[in-house]
């Protein structure tokens, strides 16, 4: 089966998997307009997309095209100006309350007054989450996962940019959410750490059956991780195309340099250029 054939410009193509999975996130004709200091900006327009349960989907698109805006709409931070988003057939705000999703922000958002470990522990301490009853991760384990053992007691201001971002990732993972929204989580990381975390993320994803929406600028990373890659067009952004990545479920780092991945990347580059 050739992946290229699956590329489509409509949103409602089925998933690559065989079993018809539930729809995890249903983005229905969403538009967002910002009232800026000088003029109103329509960031995204007319976006429809269904993300299925257990799917790993990536969003790519030009800087400023509205990827973060879309993610923040899903996360119930921004209310769409038009259309609506459902998560597991419910509203985004009930999903938020149920801790259905976690989010990694584009810029690491840490409490500057709290130690690293307390920043990671935050999701347990607010919003009614109780680490005793939930299927939660040990904060120290999460920090180990992002290679930050030994920095538990440091303040965020004592960390490098990449280290801060890794703290945010640990914080998002610690509740083992059903849906994970990640906005360029690995942008500030070196390739080695990034590779490790890529593999680790895939492992967690497969193990947990999580649904992941992943914003990245690395086409290679998008292809390596995802089952589908959504390409967003320039502002006002719509979905420019969707690329189904028909690579084996078991992916290891060797795949990153494999020619079949390269072909997908080339295709994506074309789609981006056209968008």
């Amino acid at each position, binding site marked *: 089966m050739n992946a290229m054939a699956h590329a489509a410009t409509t949103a409602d193509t089925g998933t690559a998997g065989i079993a018809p999975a539930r729809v995890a996130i249903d983005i229905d004709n969403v538009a*967002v*307009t*910002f*009232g*800026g*200091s*000088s*003029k*109103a*900006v329509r*960031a995204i327009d007319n976006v429809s997309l269904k993300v299925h349960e257990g799917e790993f989907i990536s969003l790519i698109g030009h800087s400023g095209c509205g990827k973060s*805006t879309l993610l923040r709409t899903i996360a119930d*931070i*921004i*209310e769409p*100006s*038009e259309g609506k988003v459902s998560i597991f057939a419910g509203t985004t705000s009930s999903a938020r309350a149920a801790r259905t999703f976690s989010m990694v922000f584009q810029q690491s958002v840490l409490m500057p007054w709290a130690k690293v470990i307390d920043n990671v522990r935050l999701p347990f301490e607010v919003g009614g989450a109780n680490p005793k009853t939930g299927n939660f991760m040990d904060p120290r384990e999460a920090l180990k996962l992002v290679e930050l053992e030994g920095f538990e007691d440091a303040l965020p*201001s004592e960390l490098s940019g990449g280290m801060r971002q890794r703290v945010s990732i640990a914080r998002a993972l610690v509740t083992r959410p059903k849906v994970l929204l990640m906005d360029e989580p690995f942008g500030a990381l070196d390739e080695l750490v990034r590779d490790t975390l890529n593999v680790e993320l895939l492992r967690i994803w497969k193990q947990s059956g999580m649904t992941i929406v992943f914003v990245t600028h690395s086409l290679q990373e998008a292809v390596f991780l995802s089952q589908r890659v959504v390409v967003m067009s320039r502002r006002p952004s719509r979905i420019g195309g969707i690329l189904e990545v028909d690579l084996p479920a078991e992916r290891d780092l060797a795949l990153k340099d494999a020619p079949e991945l390269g072909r997908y990347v080339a295709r994506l580059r074309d789609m981006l250029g056209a968008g």
Partner: protein
Amino acid sequence: MSIDRSVGTTAAPLPRIWSIFPSPDAARALGMAMLGLTLTLIIWQLIIVLFKVPTYLVPAPTDVAGAVSRDLPLLLEAAVPTITEAFFGFLLGNTVALLVAVSFVYNKVVEEMFYPVAILIKTIPIVAIAPVLKIILGNGIEPKIVIAALICFFPTLVNSVRGFRAVNPQLLELMRVLSASKTEVFLRVRVYSALPYIFSALKISVTMCVLGAIVGEWIGANKGIGYLLLQSMFDFNAPRLFATILTASVIAITGFAIVSMLEKWIIRWDPGVAM
């Protein structure tokens, strides 16, 4: 939730233009203030009636209203000199406070040496140095202005020293790389970082300078709110006394509202944000 302010709305607001006319926001605030004051008056009246508080002790709002309507020309006439004194005291006190704060921020040694001196000056009761003030400044408007200035000097000093230092350290690094002089760092970064603090201080000192003008009038005046206050007290004219206090409050609340409006107009970015 208070997050609402970061939520994009369907309709982009009209571009902000500078206008001296009250905005719908201001009208709403005024209405709410009226409501709050009315509620307070009702509770006050109830207390007076229920506990049979005698008029000579605390008059009922109805008595005060009677006094206001009877003495309105008197109250308005008294307001003029007090507003003048408070206004110039406000200007003088805050200007000096800002200048001293600047010198403190420029020079830590100056701060360590003279912050205690500022506190010392702050703790001198006005009555104790009234004779000196009179000899230096005479019996005109000057001593009242100076007293109003003295009283509102300290909050602005403390807040602006804090504010000038609450600067995003990354912006300081940027300015350092640009070899910005201390003055440039000051004008381009510190001033903006301090503005939320300074406006907070101005809100405090705008009410305090009215009180300062009144106290100033107590050491020697034959007009003004302070004079009328003392005279009403001598005469056991409690309704007029409270009408006078109310006049002072209206002056203070108006000052507060003006400073708040200025703040809204000047601080258009989110003071919590750092890029």
